[in-house]
């Protein structure tokens, strides 16, 4: 029994903190909302080896696991740092599993090129289809359709075409390659496509509410694609990996919101006392801590499951995301409240964390969907 970070993991965490600490990402987040440029953190990610974090040694990566990826995400969350790992890491993990395109994979691991995973929600007992987040509204959208059919002559072997729209894909703008989950005649397939020069593949960059979160809509209209020799379990793994990464990122945001809230509650006085001495304020701050502790435990669980118990990753990641979204919402609202009116002004940092929370909890199925996944697994097991 050892549910604690190893020396190497502590080192990775501290290195990430140090690397991101060289940028004023918080001020940049505000400027970007007014049309300013965000710092390009990809060179930092490359230098730190994050681009190849989930790529095995033999394919030119660091050969680390989901837990290390999550630790980096914690630090990115803490500083609202726009590092496009939510898209890149699952895409490279899937390519690494397939092992089919070593050249591309090596350049992705090195960071020379960048990829995005186009996620799809695996079926459960309430919805037996693979689906993607809808452009708007409450009804989930169908995954893109794959039509098999070999074509010769291009730079890559083409196994067929893919058609369909996927909205709100993390880190999609600016990528060189996409890894797409689609459904063909025999069921789910995992596909690879270059972005440049691929007919029928267009990316629309979108910015909503949180300028530090890069998003894109993907339109596929008979785009030629290469099929990877991966199955439904691999596609599901990448979905849950993203859930775990989002939960880890939430942990970083919550920790920072708590730190800032507590610091202010100690130095702001009202009626001759620091406001943190009042029970009403104190209890709310402890509530952030309570949710953070629960989230931390589940982030550890998901990290451990990711490296040692893959069959538990769906439960662990879904539970972490569920608690993570709740904690994110509570902590970022409390960060504003404890600061009073000033916390709700443009000049203050609190709204930037709030914006992150409000967008995050609506991505990749949303926190309500992850709770559904937890229940689905329990109810399915109970019905046996």
């Amino acid at each position, binding site marked *: *029994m*050892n*549910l*604690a*970070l*190893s020396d190497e*993991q502590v080192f990775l965490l501290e290195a990430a903190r140090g690397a991101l600490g060289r940028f004023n990402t918080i001020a940049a987040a505000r400027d970007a909302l007014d049309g300013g440029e965000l710092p390009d953190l990809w060179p930092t990610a490359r230098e730190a080896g994050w681009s190849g974090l989930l790529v095995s040694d033999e394919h030119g990566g660091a050969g680390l696991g989901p*837990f290390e990826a999550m630790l980096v995400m914690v630090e990115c969350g803490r500083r609202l740092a726009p590092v496009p790992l939510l898209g890149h890491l699952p895409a490279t993990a899937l390519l690494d599993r397939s092992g089919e395109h070593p050249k591309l994979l090596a350049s992705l691991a090195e960071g020379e090129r960048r990829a995005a995973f186009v996620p799809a929600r695996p079926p459960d007992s*309430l919805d037996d289809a693979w689906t993607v987040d809808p452009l708007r509204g409450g009804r989930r959208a169908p995954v893109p359709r794959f039509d098999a059919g070999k074509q010769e002559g291009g730079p890559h072997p083409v196994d067929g075409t893919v058609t369909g729209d996927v909205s709100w894909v993390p880190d999609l703008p600016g990528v060189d390659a996409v890894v797409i989950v689609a459904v063909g005649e025999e069921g789910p397939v995992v596909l690879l496509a270059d972005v440049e020069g691929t007919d029928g593949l267009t990316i629309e960059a979108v910015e909503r509410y949180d300028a530090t979160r890069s998003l894109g809509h993907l339109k596929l209209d008979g785009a030629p694609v290469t099929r990877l020799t991966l199955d439904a379990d691999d596609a599901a793994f990448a979905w849950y990996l993203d859930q775990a990464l989002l939960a880890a990122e939430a942990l970083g945001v919550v920790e920072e919101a*708590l730190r800032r809230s*507590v610091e202010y*509650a*100690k130095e702001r006085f009202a009626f001759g*006392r*620091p406001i*943190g*001495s*009042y*029970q009403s304020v*104190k*209890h709310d*701050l*402890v*509530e952030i*801590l*309570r949710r953070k*502790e*629960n*989230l*931390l*435990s*589940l982030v*550890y*669980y998901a*990290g*451990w499951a990711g*490296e*040692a118990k893959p069959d538990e990753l769906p*439960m*662990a990641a*879904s*539970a*972490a995301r*569920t*608690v993570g979204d*709740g904690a994110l919402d509570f902590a970022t609202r409390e960060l504003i409240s404890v600061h009073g009116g000033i916390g709700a002004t443009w000049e203050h940092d609190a709204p930037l964390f709030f914006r992150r929370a409000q967008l995050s909890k609506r991505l990749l199925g949303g926190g*309500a969907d*992850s*709770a*559904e*996944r*937890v*229940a*689905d697994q*329990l*109810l399915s*097991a*109970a*019905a046996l």
Partner: protein
Amino acid sequence: MDLNDTPEQAEYRARVRDWLEQHADEAPKITRDDITPEVIDARRKWQGKLAEAGFVGITWPREYGGQGLGPLEQVVFTQELSRAKLPGILDVIGIGMLGPTIIAHGSEEQKQRYLGPMLHGDEVWCQLFSEPAAGSDLAGIQSRAKLQDDGTWRVSGQKVWTTNAQFASFGLMMVRTDADVPKHKGLTMFVVPMDADGVTVRPLRQISGEAHFNEVFFDDVALDEAAPVGPVGNGWGVGLTTLMYERVAIGLGGDGFGWRADRFATALAADEGASADPETRRRLGEVAADLLSLRFTGYRQLSLLQRGQVPGPEGALGKITTIRAAIEAADLLVDALGPDALADHEWGGMVSELPGLKSAGGTEEILRNMVGERVLGLPPEPRLDKGIPFSELRAKEKEVAAG
């Protein structure tokens, strides 16, 4: 990070599993709520068998009948017990909290006299701390002990929320021995024989109509000179040890109440309407995620204990999450199953017991104060009782109340 057993732990687990399989039919068939004398007797005997086999006081030192093993072996044993669906020991409070307190602060004579029979369930113990006017503010204890000329003591007062008092042989009692010093300083811990003249135990019925706790009255009870545990006047320090063990027990005890997500899911899965309702499913998922987090919070604390560190006060947050999740779960089950479920022993009983349990082991409010001050470093509220002799406190309170 590794949650798998080491070879030694796997060997220990196999030994426990093997023993439990061989002796499963000797265990009493009971539910947690069953407290008839016959059941108590059967559970006492079961504890004796477990003790003979070396499965009680696993973390206690060997010289006092324990096994001298670590918290992890204790957890392995608890896991195997739960896996085999067998009842645990009767005297959880004695073995988990009061015994360790005596080991830490008691005299050698006390250790030799009390620990053995406690371990085997021959003498069950109860914890006599809370009083009607001393709960969150525990140091406000009014029970008093007077030193007699011959060195013996006379104790009077009232305790409340006392689990197991109706069949306990001894109680560990926090009593005021000096009212002329500030309240934390004038307390002493005593061992009290529950069959002594002047001790009256009265069951306390709760919302469910059942009585799981007692109130205990002490009317001029005579105690001998060897009754204090630790120095006279250091009862608060001794009590903190007990509360530290309570915190560890709560942190590691997760499934102890049977509030497990799989159990809730099984009840819901049996009802087609409930198990297909998206809102019911979402609520179940949220409760289950919280309960699951507690298990891994427990593992994090275990990792600390294994490295010789004591988990911090944030462990108390686990109790808040446990109670909240249980309240949500009971509410969900009754929503899904309808009014009949309120009359059901299982779910109705859970609905009834939780409002009281919310205050057990410290109210949510006092735990939040403690964690806010000790973990987050937030300043305490101003208080009026600092540095004031206990005997003058009442007058001061009256003054404040009068405005």
